[in-house]
């Protein structure tokens, strides 16, 4: 399991070759890339900002959960920050597993959870010179402290 946040270009073959084992019959690489338009507006490029310290631990949690669901610990995930151009890779996810279904499932889980809860933001620059923060997802609220709401019957007199 390997997860990191980087402001350097992502070497995708390195990400893919970091997974795989003799037990695995499937290896999968997913890339997220910057596209040339968003909702009809021509895009010049994108800046990704992150809460770096927190993003590193959330990414590691997400990969751990995906590995648990899919039954593999061969997962690598890297997310880019900084200025990106059209076509640049913003996220790379590699998974290997004995069979294909688990690898697809794990990679899908990782990208969906990244979109839901990784503390990263996109500042999109358009060809007309304007720029804006993209609308994002509101991460799920954490469960209330269990001490604050004792389960019935557990409160001592």
């Amino acid at each position, binding site marked *: 399991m390997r997860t990191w946040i980087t402001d350097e270009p992502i070497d995708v073959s390195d990400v893919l070759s970091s997974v795989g084992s003799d037990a695995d019959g499937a290896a999968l690489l997913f890339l997220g890339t910057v596209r040339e338009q968003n909702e009809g507006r021509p895009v010049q490029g994108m800046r990704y900002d992150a*809460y770096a310290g927190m993003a590193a631990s959330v990414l590691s949690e997400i990969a751990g959960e995906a590995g648990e669901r899919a039954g593999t610990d061969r997962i690598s995930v890297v997310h880019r920050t900084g200025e990106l151009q059209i076509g640049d890779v913003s996220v790379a996810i590699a998974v290997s597993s004995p069979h294909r279904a688990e690898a697809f499932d794990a990679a899908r889980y990782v990208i969906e959870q990244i979109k839901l809860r*990784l*503390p990263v933001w*996109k500042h999109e620059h358009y060809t007309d010179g304007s720029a804006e*923060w993209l609308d994002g*997802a*509101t991460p799920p609220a954490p469960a209330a402290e269990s001490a604050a709401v004792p389960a019935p019957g557990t409160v001592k007199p």
Partner: protein
Amino acid sequence: MRIQLLLFALYRDLTGVSELDVQVPDGATAGVALADLRARDARFGRLPERPVIAINREYALLDAPLADGDELALLPPVAGG
């Protein structure tokens, strides 16, 4: 007590603040600390009343208590990927 306040992305642009060492009432929850800040500093009035927050780099609820030296981050809706 003092805490370290961190703002990101849109919230940074709205307030002009990225990082601030602030005094908050002893024993305050995150929500109370934010209300206190809002009352003292107009820049924070531009933020939503109930932003998503993290305390010491973990998502937290606004009614979570703060301790001296905590890192409180205000997080706009996230957009990774």
